[in-house]
């Protein structure tokens, strides 16, 4: 397996790399959405504390 | 020890959505007596009655009926309770008589009894039309007629007086008095003043933070 055949994937580069690219993109996207979910959760907990603090 | 037909609520904390309602509720209603729940709108009256009927679970606290918690009662608890909510619970396309017959099928032979000596709310006295064509007061009378036939010992009534006329309120007074004399128990939530004949064993004020 030389570098050149590696990149060209024996002529299938047009299909192999987008497939792995899409897979990688989605799996990283999952991480981003998980981080955003955590930020939202922490924010809502803080908001809940404030509203609770206001009530007598 | 809790006697037969005795409702005992300890340290009940109710939640609606994200708000905790009222304060810890402690209530004991003996056999043959009823509790009267008052309080402004949104103070949790309806939520309390729904939780007592098994719709929804309290955040904390224990509800015991005749010595056993609702969890211990399990499915059998359904036969013990008659619940009258904001909604009448009757089918608009059926006539009053047919609604009574339908409720009898739902409740089954054990949960049904013929009111003696004479019914306070007589379905046959109402016009024989589909209930959707009756007035709100008449529909309320149909659902109270269904309640009258219920053999369930625990009655949970949420705003039962709405849209009742003067002698309707008196009739409800008589109905509830007869149920209590027969050894039943009840919890009533209402805005309107109760008929003078009914004296609640305890009055629970919801909505004020102790």
């Amino acid at each position, binding site marked *: 397996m030389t570098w050149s055949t590696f990149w060209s*994937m024996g002529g299938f580069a047009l299909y192999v790399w987008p497939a792995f690219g*899409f897979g990688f993109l989605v*799996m990283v996207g999952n991480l981003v959405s998980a981080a955003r979910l955590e930020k939202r*959760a922490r924010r809502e907990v803080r908001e809940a504390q404030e509203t609770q603090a206001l009530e007598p | 020890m809790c006697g037969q037909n005795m409702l005992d609520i300890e340290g009940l904390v109710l939640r609606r959505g994200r708000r905790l309602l009222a304060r810890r509720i402690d209530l004991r209603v003996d056999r043959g007596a009823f509790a009267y729940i008052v309080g402004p709108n949104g103070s949790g009256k309806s939520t309390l009655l729904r939780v007592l009927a098994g719709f929804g679970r309290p955040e904390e606290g224990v509800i015991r009926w005749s010595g056993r918690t609702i969890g211990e009662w399990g499915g059998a608890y359904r036969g013990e309770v008659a619940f009258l909510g904001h909604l009448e619970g009757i089918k608009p396309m059926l006539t009053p008589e047919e609604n009574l017959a339908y409720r009898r099928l739902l409740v089954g032979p054990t949960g049904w009894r013929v009111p003696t000596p004479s019914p306070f709310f007589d379905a046959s006295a109402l016009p024989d039309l589909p209930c959707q064509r009756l007035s709100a007061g008449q529909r309320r009378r149909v659902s109270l007629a269904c309640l009258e036939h219920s053999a369930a010992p625990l009655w949970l009534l949420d705003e039962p007086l709405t849209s009742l006329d003067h002698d309707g309120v008196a009739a409800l007074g008589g109905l509830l008095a007869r149920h209590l004399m027969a050894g039943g128990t009840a919890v009533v939530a209402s805005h309107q003043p109760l008929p003078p004949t009914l004296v609640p064993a305890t009055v629970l004020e919801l909505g004020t933070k102790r």
Partner: protein
Amino acid sequence: MSGRWSRWIHRWASPPYFYRASRPWGRVFAVVSFVAIAIGLYGGLWLAPPDFQQGNGFRIIYVHVPSAWMSLFIFVFLAVCGLIGLIWRIKLAHAMASAAAPIGAAFTAITLVTGSLWAKPMWGTFWVWDARLTSELILFFLYLGVIALSRSFENQQTGDRAAAILAIVGAVDVPIIHYSVDWWQTLHQGAIFRGNPFDGHLHTTVAPSMLWPLLVMWLGFMCYFGALVLWRARSEILLRQLDTGWAREAVGAP
């Protein structure tokens, strides 16, 4: 025995304990998944010899097959969490389910896209109503249904429990869908194409040098799912316990 077992469940089912204890486990899974995927890619893309029939195009199976497997596994995971949540009323189970659902949908999407990217060189079109791709497509709609249902109630608990019921019924239906789509495909076998390269590959004895990267990738994806679902579940359990004391401390201390 059952004492230890139920103690283990009660310990893990308590949200505060889960919130603290799941963090180290999440890190372990993350490291293992990173290493496994790296090794799997190296094995699959570099070491494995090209397939005599499909040349290097077959390498797409190293992302297609593990993600297809994950999409099925996670749906069963949803149903099991739903069952636990409904029967024992463990709030954490519903949090795990609503954490896992989007990940499962993502893996199903990966399967569909990589599957069609594989179909193009083999049959000349991106989409082929092949049995596996079709049932994967239906599985994708099942995922969307479960996620949509769980988010359409303003009372989160009702949403969780309704989605749990749908996930359980869906999980019972998945094998039926697979069987019916397979039967449907054999009926129309002649209509679309001669052989089925998917089948050709998986049932014949795959050379070991091609097989081990597949298993390593599978391990990598499982650990990736483990790390991610624990991370998302921590946020989901916070969202379900906003007014509790432990949530305050958990958020207070970063």
